[in-house]
C-alpha cells in the first residue's frame, strides 16, 4: 500500500512515526484528547497533512469518549479515521469501545492508545492489551518508532478487512523514542461519506447484540488465524529446540535484542517476537513453547501473553515472579531477569554484572531529590497560596489531573484521582460531613480549564443540584499546559491553528446553575485571597451553594511576558522563617546564609511573592 519511499529520512519521535503511518495509510479524520505520552501524535498528523497537501479533519475533543464516538461515526460512513489518547483516557472511552467491538465499522478505525509503564506521567500502569482482550478487539504492540509507523498502516488494513476497530498500543519508550525513518508518500483516499442505514447493526437491541456477540467471536477466530502469519509475529533465530526460548514484545523486545547483542549472544537465544498478541495466535505461541524446556515471556506493563497461554508449566514471567510485577522493564531490570535464566540454560557461565554496585554508590550519596515543581511565576502557585491562606489547616482540598497536582507541596492538594474527580469528590466530601447535621470544613476543589471541560461538567451539574456547598476554583491558564500546550475548547483554536467557535467558561458555569462566580487575576495575590474568603462565605450563607472562582492568567510557558514586570529584592527584615519557601515555594527563591535569595535567572519578575512575606521582607527591587 505505501508507495516508493520519498527522499526524506527524518529522526521521528515515535508519536510522529505513528502519525506518519496513519497519514501514509490514508487517514482522513483524527480525533484526540491530549495526555502524556500520546500528545504529539495529533499535532504531527496535522503537520504532515499540511506539508503533503492531504485534506485531514482534526480535532482536540472534549474528552476521549467524545473523540472515539466521533471517529466511530466517521468509520461507519466508510472513512478512515483515527482516535488518539493515553491509557487512562481509554477508561473514559471504555463505553463506546466495548460496544464498538460488537457493532464494528466499515471504514478503517485505528484506536491509538499510549501506555505509560513506570509510570512517568500517569495514575496507573494499566496495560491496554488487557483492555483489548476485555473488549475483544485486535491489538498491535510496536517495539520501535519504525515498527509503530508500519503497524499504523497494517492496523487500517486489518480494520477494514475485518470491519473492526484495531487498537495500536504504543508505550512510553516508543512514543518518546526517536529513530531515523524514511518517509513514504501518503495515500490520499477519495472516499465520500456514505452512511448505509442498518438499524439492526448500528442501533442493535439486546436480542441482536447476542447475534453480534456470536459474530464477534467468529471474527476473532478469523483474525487469530491471520495473526499466525502476521509479519509482526515472527521467530528470530532458527533453533528447533533447547533449554530456553523467549517470547517478547514491545520495548522489552528491543532491549532484549540489544542486551543479547552486547553480550555476544545475538542469534543464540530463540525469540518469538509477538507484536500482535491478541487475539492470540495460539498455534504459533503454544507451538513455540512446546519446543523449549523453559520459555520466558517479556511484555509490559502487565501480563497478557502469559495469561492467554493454556499451559503455563514451562512459562516464566510475571505470574511466577520471574519478572517484576510493577515498574518499567528497563535494561537493569531485564539484566536481573535474564542473567540467572541464561546461566541455568548454560548459555553463559554466570549471571551478568547488574550494575547494582554503582547504583548503590549513587543511592548512598544523598543527591538532591528533584520533585517536579510549578514553574517560576506559574499563576497556579499564587492561586494555591490564596486558597491555603483562606482554607487553612482544617480545609479539604480535592484536586485534579494537570500541572496543578504539583500544588500538593503548598498544602492545597489533598486528593488527585481522575479527570474531573475534584468536583465530584468535593460534593462527596461536603455530603459526608453535612450528613446528619455535622460540621463542614472549608472545601476548595481545584481543576484546570481543560480538565473541567473533559470531566468536570457533569460533576458540577451534580454538585449544584445535590445541594453541595464548596468553592470550585477553575484554574484558567488558557491552555492545556502539562501535556505540551494544546488549545482548550475555550480558545476555539483548532489543531491546525485555525480559529473555530469558542466556549465561554463563565456562561458554562452559570448555565449549569452556579449562582456565585468571580474572576480574579491570581497575580494580584491580595485580591485573590479576598475573593477566596468571599467565596467561602457564600458556601456558608443561609442561601449558599457552590461558589466558582476563576483565577485567570496565561501559562508562563504558553504566553511569556503577559504581565507588568516587578523585579523583587529581599531586605534585611528577612528572618529566614521559611514561610515563602514552604507555603509559596517558587523555585526562584532559596535559603541563603543570612536571608532568602532570589535567583535572577529563574525569576520571571511576576512580583507575586511580595505579599507572601508577612514581615514585608520581599519588596519591589527599586525599594530594596
Amino acid at each position, binding site marked *: 500500500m505505501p508507495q516508493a519511499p520519498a527522499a526524506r529520512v527524518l529522526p521521528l519521535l515515535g508519536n510522529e512515526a505513528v502519525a506518519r503511518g496513519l497519514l501514509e495509510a490514508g487517514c482522513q479524520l483524527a480525533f484526540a484528547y491530549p495526555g502524556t505520552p500520546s500528545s504529539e501524535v495529533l499535532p504531527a498528523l496535522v503537520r504532515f497533512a499540511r506539508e503533503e497537501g492531504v485534506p485531514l479533519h482534526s480535532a482536540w475533543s472534549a474528552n476521549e469518549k467524545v473523540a472515539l464516538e466521533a471517529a466511530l461515526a466517521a468509520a461507519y460512513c466508510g472513512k478512515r479515521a483515527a482516535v488518539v489518547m493515553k491509557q487512562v483516557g481509554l477508561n473514559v472511552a471504555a463505553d463506546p469501545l466495548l460496544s464498538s467491538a460488537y457493532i464494528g465499522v466499515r471504514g478503517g478505525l485505528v484506536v491509538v492508545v499510549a501506555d505509560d509503564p513506570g509510570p512517568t506521567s500517569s495514575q496507573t500502569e494499566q496495560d491496554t492489551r488487557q483492555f483489548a482482550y476485555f473488549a475483544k478487539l485486535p491489538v498491535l504492540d510496536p517495539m520501535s518508532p519504525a515498527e509503530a509507523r508500519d503497524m499504523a498502516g497494517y492496523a487500517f488494513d486489518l480494520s477494514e478487512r475485518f470491519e473492526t476497530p484495531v487498537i495500536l498500543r504504543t508505550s512510553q519508550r516508543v512514543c518518546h*523514542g*526517536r*529513530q531515523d525513518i524514511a518517509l513514504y508518500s501518503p495515500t490520499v483516499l477519495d472516499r465520500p461519506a456514505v452512511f448505509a442505514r442498518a438499524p439492526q447493526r448500528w442501533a442493535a437491541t439486546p436480542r441482536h447484540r447476542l447475534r453480534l456477540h456470536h459474530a464477534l467471536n467468529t471474527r476473532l477466530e478469523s483474525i487469530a488465524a491471520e495473526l499466525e502469519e502476521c509479519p509482526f509475529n515472527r521467530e528470530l533465530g532458527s533453533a528447533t529446540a533447547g533449554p530456553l526460548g523467549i517470547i517478547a514484545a514491545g520495548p522489552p523486545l528491543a*532491549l532484549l535484542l540489544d542486551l543479547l547483542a552486547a553480550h555476544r549472544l545475538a542469534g543464540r537465544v530463540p525469540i518469538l517476537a509477538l507484536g500482535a498478541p491478541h487475539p492470540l495466535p495460539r498455534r504459533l505461541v503454544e507451538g513455540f513453547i512446546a519446543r523449549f524446556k523453559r520459555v520466558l515471556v517479556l511484555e509490559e506493563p502487565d501480563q497478557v501473553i502469559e495469561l492467554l497461554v493454556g499451559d503455563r508449566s514451562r512459562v516464566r514471567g510475571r505470574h511466577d515472579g520471574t519478572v517484576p510485577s510493577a515498574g518499567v522493564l528497563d*535494561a537493569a531490570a531485564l539484566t536481573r531477569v535474564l542473567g540467572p535464566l541464561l546461566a541455568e540454560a548454560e548459555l553463559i557461565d554466570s549471571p551478568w554484572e547488574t550494575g547494582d554496585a*554503582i*547504583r548503590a554508590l549513587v543511592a548512598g550519596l544523598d543527591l538532591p531529590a528533584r520533585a517536579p515543581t510549578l514553574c517560576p511565576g506559574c499563576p497556579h502557585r499564587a492561586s494555591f497560596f490564596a486558597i491555603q491562606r483562606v482554607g487553612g489547616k482544617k480545609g479539604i482540598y480535592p484536586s485534579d489531573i494537570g500541572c496543578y497536582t504539583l500544588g500538593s507541596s503548598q498544602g492545597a492538594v489533598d486528593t488527585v484521582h481522575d479527570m474531573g474527580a475534584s468536583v465530584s469528590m468535593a460534593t462527596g466530601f461536603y455530603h459526608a460531613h453535612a450528613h446528619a447535621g455535622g460540621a463542614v470544613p472549608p472545601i476548595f476543589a481545584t481543576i484546570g480549564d481543560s480538565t473541567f471541560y473533559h470531566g468536570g461538567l457533569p460533576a458540577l451539574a451534580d454538585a449544584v443540584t445535590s445541594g453541595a456547598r464548596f468553592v470550585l476554583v477553575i484554574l484558567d491558564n488558557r491552555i492545556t499546559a502539562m501535556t505540551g500546550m494544546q488549545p482548550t475548547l475555550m480558545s476555539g483554536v483548532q489543531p491546525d491553528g485555525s480559529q473555530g467557535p469558542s466556549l465561554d467558561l463563565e456562561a458554562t458555569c452559570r448555565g449549569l446553575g452556579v449562582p456565585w462566580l468571580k474572576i480574579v487575576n491570581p497575580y494580584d495575590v491580595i485580591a485573590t485571597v479576598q475573593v477566596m474568603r468571599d467565596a467561602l462565605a457564600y458556601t456558608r450563607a443561609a442561601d449558599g451553594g457552590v461558589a466558582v472562582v476563576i483565577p485567570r492568567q496565561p501559562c508562563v510557558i504558553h504566553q511569556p511576558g503577559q504581565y507588568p514586570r516587578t523585579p523583587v529584592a529581599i531586605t534585611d527584615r528577612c528572618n529566614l522563617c521559611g514561610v515563602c519557601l514552604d507555603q509559596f515555594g517558587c*523555585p526562584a527563591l532559596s535559603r541563603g546564609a543570612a536571608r532568602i535569595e532570589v535567583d535572577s535567572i529563574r525569576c520571571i519578575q511576576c512580583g507575586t511573592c511580595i505579599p507572601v512575606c508577612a514581615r514585608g521582607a520581599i519588596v519591589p527591587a527599586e525599594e530594596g
Partner: protein
Amino acid sequence: MGSCDVVIAGLGGQGIVLASRVLMEVALRQGLPVRGAETHGMAQRGGSVLAHVRVGACQSPEVLSGRADLVLALEHHEGIRALPFLGPGGTLVVNAESPELLPLAVRAHLDACGAHLLPVPATRLAQEAGDVKALNMVLVGVACGLPGTPFTLETAATALQALVKPRALTASLAALRLGAARA
C-alpha cells in the same frame, strides 16, 4: 568510530531535548543510523531529565546501563545520577569548574572502571558565548571535540542552523565552539 551511545543528564528547562536533537541530526547528516529517547510530561517541570542518543546499529532507543560512551551532565548531581549508564572507558563530561565538585567516591569509581572525568565550566562558557541558556550547546560542542565520537563540529554548526531559533543562533554557535575547544 561509527557507533556511539550518549546520555545527556540535567534538569527540566536546561535544553536537554534540544541538545539530543542536535547530536542526532549531526549523526543523521553523516549518514549514520540514529535512535534516541526523550523525557516529556511531568518530569519536565524542574525534575531530573535524561535524553539518550544512540548512533549505530541497535534496536532500543535507550542506552543500556554500563554501556554509554559519553555522559554529558548539564548539572553535576544529575551527572552522578546518570553514572550507572557510563561504560568502562567512557567519559563523564560534567558542568563543573573543577573535578573536586564530584565526591571522592565518584572519582574513585571512575578511576576503577577506566572511565574519564572531564569537568567543563559550561555555565561560564555559555555566558561568555552571550547567553547562559546556551549551556546545552557547550556540552554538544564538547561531544564534537572529543576524539573518537562520530560528531563533527562543522556538521553540528550546520545542524544548529536548522534546529535553533534564529535569535539564539549566534550564542549557540559560539557556545558550540567554546565547548569543542575544551574537549
